């Protein structure tokens, strides 16, 4: 039987400074990954060139991965980020240092997940690969 290729919607909580945290998707599925790429394009031109959307280029990965956070508003209420529009608006409202911290945290997470998957692939390949030749005792 083949392996399940559906991306399980799992999350990881990552601590950031001052006791805050973000909750991010462990992995993106194909649709989320494509959407993340599409968000950084502002315009497609007839000659094939694209104009990037500089407002989201830097935070596209954060927008794609971020599910929840502990950041609060001036009244101490957790800032909701349950839709793309809310996430974008909330991110734009934070100070630059905070967003830089989020970008770095998500970058590190993506790298760690890539390494984890590469290691898993090696293990799986080692377990399931058939030998190119086999010996038989006659």
């Amino acid at each position, binding site marked *: 039987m083949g392996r399940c290729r559906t991306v*399980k*919607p*799992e999350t990881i909580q990552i601590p950031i400074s001052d006791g805050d945290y973000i909750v991010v998707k462990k992995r993106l599925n194909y649709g989320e990954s494509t959407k993340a790429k599409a968000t950084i394009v502002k315009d497609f031109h007839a000659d094939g060139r694209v104009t990037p959307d500089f407002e989201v280029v830097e935070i596209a990965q954060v927008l794609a991965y971020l599910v*929840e956070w502990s950041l609060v508003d001036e009244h101490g209420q957790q800032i909701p980020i349950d839709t793309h529009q809310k996430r974008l608006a909330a991110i734009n409202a934070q100070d630059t240092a905070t967003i830089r911290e989020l970008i770095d945290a998500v970058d590190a997470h993506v790298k760690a997940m890539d390494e984890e998957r590469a290691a898993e692939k090696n293990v799986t390949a080692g377990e399931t690969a058939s030998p190119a030749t086999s010996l038989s005792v006659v």
Partner: protein
Amino acid sequence: MNLTITGVEGQIRWAYHSAAVLRAWTVVSSDATRTLTASIVSQDTFRVSQRPLVFVAPHAKGSWTWPIEELQIQDGVLSARLGPQKE
């Protein structure tokens, strides 16, 4: 005694994914059973088929969440048996 809660907007979620957007929902709670009925505004057929699902209903100070134990969709109407409300 039955307790009935109604709302305008709601959502079925598969983890962090939205599986269906609901409107005009009603939860009827009697003894140990809770039943949800709602109109479906939109749905993702694949996500709705996944488990576990939860019903999330927003309110003024946040949201209520119930796990879905059994789900049926027919002619744009969703009905579900809910588990005990999550904190």
